[in-house]
């Protein structure tokens, strides 16, 4: 058959590709360039965040303090500056970056798998389960590391709940999974309310309320270590499955007809997401909106192909979270809860993204 049988396609894309090719930017190189630019923006954001705060430190000093860990640099900065950068701000920024990346990877993978632009990590019930775990630890006045452990355990319990309800609903399909997630979220949200009701109004209740609004205020290097392993392991797993997310986004039947073991793939992704979300909630409380809006933003940059979308979402999510956290700790005399700020910024940003993209990257059929 000849391609001349069919009328010529619109040439604008071809022209653009030719132009990119002229500058040595084929599609693959273009993606590499996007990653390089985003990594540079992330690095600048980290330095900016390290230098910004109640105690301002110059960019130059921040860079030299960081480099002094690798190279032999004669200190020309104050000891207090080094302490603020390395002991106060850096662990907080690392935790914020890791959480932002984890939430965004989760959102991108779930939106692809559920084939729905309104899906965020909260849809599978894990956030609510983790939130209840943390609240429970605070309610019983357990040591602070129990908040993390309980948040993680209840996050996984919530996922098992969702899976159980989905199976009891008779279906392995996406709809029964979403319904399972909604039921689980509602159930754990009521348990959180019950815990609040039972909490001591002078002691546990304010801690619960503040913790639920989310904060990186008490982040330390032990938090970095604690979340690094689960987020890295689950994140790499989702990253390795990024091509499969493309196929899963075609729908269950089509994916199966293309030779994919749909159940195994789906549960591997869900379990990875649950691990990442639980780890996030355990150190920072509940942070909404990031996993929802960042994949849309990333799709605007790199298109809908998840092999590019997932890494771009990861970098964009880390950058966004560090920026928002910098605002959270510097915008007012007190600390603004990060969950409040992400929601406050998330809603208008989501509306703007919708206006800008008209859901570009999503088929309008």
């Amino acid at each position, binding site marked *: *058959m*000849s*391609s001349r*049988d*069919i009328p*010529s*396609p*619109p040439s604008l*894309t*071809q022209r653009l*590709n030719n132009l990119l090719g002229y500058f040595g930017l084929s*599609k693959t190189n273009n993606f590499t360039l996007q990653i390089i630019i985003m990594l540079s923006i992330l690095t600048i954001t980290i330095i900016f965040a390290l230098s910004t705060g109640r105690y301002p430190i110059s960019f130059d000093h921040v860079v030299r303090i960081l480099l002094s860990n690798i190279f032999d640099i004669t200190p020309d900065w104050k000891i207090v500056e080094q302490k603020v950068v390395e002991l106060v701000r850096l662990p907080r920024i690392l935790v914020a970056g890791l959480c932002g990346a984890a939430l965004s990877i989760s959102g991108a993978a779930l939106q*692809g798998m559920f*084939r*729905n*632009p309104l899906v965020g990590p909260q849809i599978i019930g894990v956030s609510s389960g983790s939130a209840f775990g943390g609240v429970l630890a605070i309610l019983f006045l357990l040591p602070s590391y129990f908040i993390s452990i309980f948040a993680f355990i209840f996050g996984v319990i919530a996922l098992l709940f969702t899976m159980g309800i989905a199976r009891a609903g008779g279906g392995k399909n996406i709809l029964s999974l979403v319904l399972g997630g909604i039921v689980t979220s509602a159930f754990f949200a009521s348990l959180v309310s019950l815990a609040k009701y039972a909490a001591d109004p002078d002691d546990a209740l304010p801690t619960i309320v503040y913790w639920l609004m989310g904060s990186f205020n008490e982040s330390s290097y032990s938090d970095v270590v604690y979340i690094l392993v689960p987020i890295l392991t689950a994140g790499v797993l989702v990253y*390795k*499955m990024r*091509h*499969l997310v*493309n*196929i899963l*986004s*075609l*729908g269950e*039947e*089509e*994916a*199966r*007809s*293309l*030779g*994919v*073991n749909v159940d*195994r*793939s789906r549960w*591997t992704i869900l379990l990875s997401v649950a691990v990442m979300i639980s780890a996030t909630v355990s150190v920072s409380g509940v942070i909404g909106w990031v996993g929802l809006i960042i994949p849309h933003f990333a799709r605007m940059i790199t*298109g*809908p*192909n998840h*092999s590019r979308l997932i890494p771009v979402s990861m970098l964009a999510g880390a950058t966004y979270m560090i920026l928002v956290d910098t605002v959270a700790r510097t915008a007012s005399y007190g600390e603004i809860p990060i969950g409040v700020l992400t929601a406050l910024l998330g809603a208008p940003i989501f509306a703007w993204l919708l206006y800008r993209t008209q859901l*570009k*990257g*999503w*088929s*309008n*059929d």
Partner: protein
Amino acid sequence: MIKVKNIGYKYPKAKTSIFEGHNFELEAGEILAILGPNGSGKTTLIKSLLGLLPIFEGEIKINGVRSYVPQHTLSPFDYSVTEMVVMGASGQNGLFAEPTKADFKKTDEALEQVGMLDWRDESFSHLSGGQRQMILIARALVSSPDIMILDEPTSALDYRNQDKVLQTMKYVADQGKAVIFSTHCPLQALHVSQKTLLVKNNTPSIFGLSKDVLSQENLSKLYQLPIARGRLEQSEIIVPLYS
């Protein structure tokens, strides 16, 4: 290459079956058309042949790799043509499958075979219905199948695009692959397929050479409408005599 013996399917807990007693055989290089009224279980039969639905009785013997061309794809994402086609190659390679250079080469070859290589970087959702069908056929070709199964590939297409899809199916069969497709148009079956299976609820299916099976009598019974078969100039035609 394909031997189907007395197969039947019913939904779990259902009393009546969707279909039963289907028998047919198909060799490499042959095309089989499946015809039947709406609700006669054509799509269910196709899904059973693909292994997507388990049969409750009978036996399916398939010797070779199957690939599927759905009526349309339901992706909500605006993938490019290449991205869409290469998925045909990477799906079977496990959880961490990544399309290789060889997969992209196969993708280009498959697009070339269906005459769509010029569209490789275009957005899939911007293509016409006929072009999309070609891309889905290319995606099926990428998995190097021995058997290609198409679910009503021409149902939403105009005559010219129907012809293109039929010619592509013939081309695929000429490459030594077995092709199975369902259709509502007996004329298509007569023109491209060597064999035809007529299916209808609660009635034994009829299988044989298309020229024999697609008789006026069989088709009229199948659709419960008078259907005429005759010649117009050099071509054989089949037309429904609408009431």
